[in-house]
């Protein structure tokens, strides 16, 4: 008996503990005004959770690179502060930076160095003793091992970007910033890179990436943040966003207003709107017609329509609507303009 009572209690006790894990990056009231007077970031507040993949979306010039550059020490903040793994990036820069890896947006390389030399250099620069085995593992995971003795100038663009990733991973960072890691990378390689990033996340690295490909954010991210004109306008779980994305909506304009949804239609996710004149049906576009997954939920427009008919509910018109992440994104960005 007692154990039955205790078990859920213990779980309840454990729950808050898990959520209390401090964020790995904390950005507080961060602002940046460039020397030109341009206000690139405006009072940014942002927390990145330990071990997540966070995708930062935003149009060109939104301030993504500026934000990352401040966190990584390339740009001075005008106001506010940033903690990385609990360490202030200015006063405790050694501790903070040794935990951070950065893959910049621009492809920059020491043209005449070999892959091996440049990656080993990065490790030393970040204060780590030489570890050829680690470098070997990194190069192999990025399929650069065969190229280790090649000069960087002889590599293709995609390979150069992977070298930059290898450099960032050379010192085993806890936090990895990827500024548009897949810009100009072909589809196949992009998938490979996603795989690499996922493996990193599984090994406990927190990843913050920027991208212009909505598809990429959908594919990779645990959470998504949207930045525009230097302001964070949305931070949300990807699953939540995907729910909005994946859910379709059928609106029926009824001939006679309803007060409540009839009992026999309770199996559908229905709601009344416009004073009962509209019946809105939410359904998961991904599940329609899929008998295996949508088993317990009555889904499918055809079924609903015949049930409506049987219930004697008539309608004069209908339309369906689907929002994509892209749409959400565009409308968000436009709203703030």
């Amino acid at each position, binding site marked *: 008996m007692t154990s039955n009572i205790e078990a859920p209690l213990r779980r309840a006790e454990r729950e808050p503990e898990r959520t209390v894990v401090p964020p790995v990056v904390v950005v507080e009231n961060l602002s940046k005004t*460039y*020397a030109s007077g341009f206000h690139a970031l405006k009072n940014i507040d942002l927390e990145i959770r330990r071990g997540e993949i966070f995708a930062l979306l935003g149009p060109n010039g939104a301030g993504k690179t500026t934000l990352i550059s401040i966190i*990584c*020490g*390339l*740009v*001075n903040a005008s106001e506010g502060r940033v903690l990385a793994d609990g360490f202030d990036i200015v006063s405790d*820069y*050694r*501790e*903070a*930076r*040794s935990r*951070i890896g*950065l893959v*910049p947006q*621009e492809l*920059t*390389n*020491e*043209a*005449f160095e070999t892959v091996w*030399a440049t990656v080993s*250099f*990065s*490790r*030393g*620069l*970040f*204060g*780590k*003793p030489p570890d050829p085995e680690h470098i070997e593992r990194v190069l192999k995971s990025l399929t650069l091992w065969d190229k280790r003795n090649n000069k960087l100038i002889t590599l293709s663009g995609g390979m150069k970007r992977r070298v930059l990733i290898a*450099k960032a991973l050379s010192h085993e960072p806890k936090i990895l910033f990827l500024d548009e890691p897949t810009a100009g990378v072909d589809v196949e390689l992009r998938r490979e890179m996603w795989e690499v990033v996922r493996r990193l996340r599984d090994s406990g690295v927190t990843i913050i990436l920027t991208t212009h490909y909505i598809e990429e954010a959908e594919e990779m991210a645990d959470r998504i943040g949207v930045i525009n004109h230097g302001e964070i306008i949305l931070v949300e779980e990807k699953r939540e966003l995907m729910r909005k994305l994946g859910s379709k909506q059928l609106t029926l304009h009824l001939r006679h207003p309803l007060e409540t949804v009839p009992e026999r239609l309770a199996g559908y996710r229905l709601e009344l709107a416009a004073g009962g004149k509209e019946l809105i049906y939410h359904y998961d576009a991904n599940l329609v017609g899929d008998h295996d997954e949508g088993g317990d939920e009555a889904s499918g427009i055809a079924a609903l329509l015949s049930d409506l008919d049987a219930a004697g509910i008539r309608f004069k018109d209908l339309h369906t609507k689907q929002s994509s992440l892209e749409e959400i994104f565009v409308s968000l960005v436009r709203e703030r303009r």
Partner: protein
Amino acid sequence: MNLYAVRAIYTFEMARAWRTLLQSVVSPVISTSLYFVVFGAAIGTRIAEIEGVSYGAFLVPGLIMLMLLTQSVSNASFGIFFPKFTGTIYELLSAPVSYFEIVVGYVGAAATKSLVLGLIILATAGFFVPLSVAHPFWMLLFLVLTAVTFSLLGFIIGIWADGFEKLQLVPLLVITPLTFLGGSFYSIDMLPPFWQAVTLFNPVLYLVSGFRWSFYGISDVSVGASLFMILLFLGICLAVVSWIFKTGYRLKP
């Protein structure tokens, strides 16, 4: 102290010099040899001894200084300008290294290169004129101090320069005239009194004079003044470098 970082920067820079070994050694050696042939052998025979030292031998310390200054400035300025130019400096700025460590790495490497070069030129000079070094310790001290100070100056120039023109400008417009007018090729006694006074404002004069003293025991100004001037210049360069890093001047927007 992030010693791994200092070592990484230092060896990386030295490796770059190693790759371009031929041009970094051959060209200074050839140009120094040319100076000896033209000034030492051709013209030098027409010039009387200076305080008991043949003109060819008198030239050696000045020539080494000339090379040391120009090579230190160009090595160090290029060393830091290049990553700025290509963008690879992002890594340096994002690394857990202090400004002091960055400077030790870059300036150390540049100074090492020009020191080695100075010694090579000294050896080359030995082929042309009989050499004697009266105060070897002081000679090395002046060499090291000069190499470090002017590598620091080069480092500053490399950070300040935002194009290749500026990178060339300072050595061309400042360093070369100062060395030529700093008594590298003559004793200032040979100048009219007015120009002698003007020359006393040239910091390079003090370097050359002190360096020459370490060879032959003769000098234009006192050794103490030479040492003071070079330490003063070193201090100024250090102050400027620390200001640069404190403000992020030309490094961080």
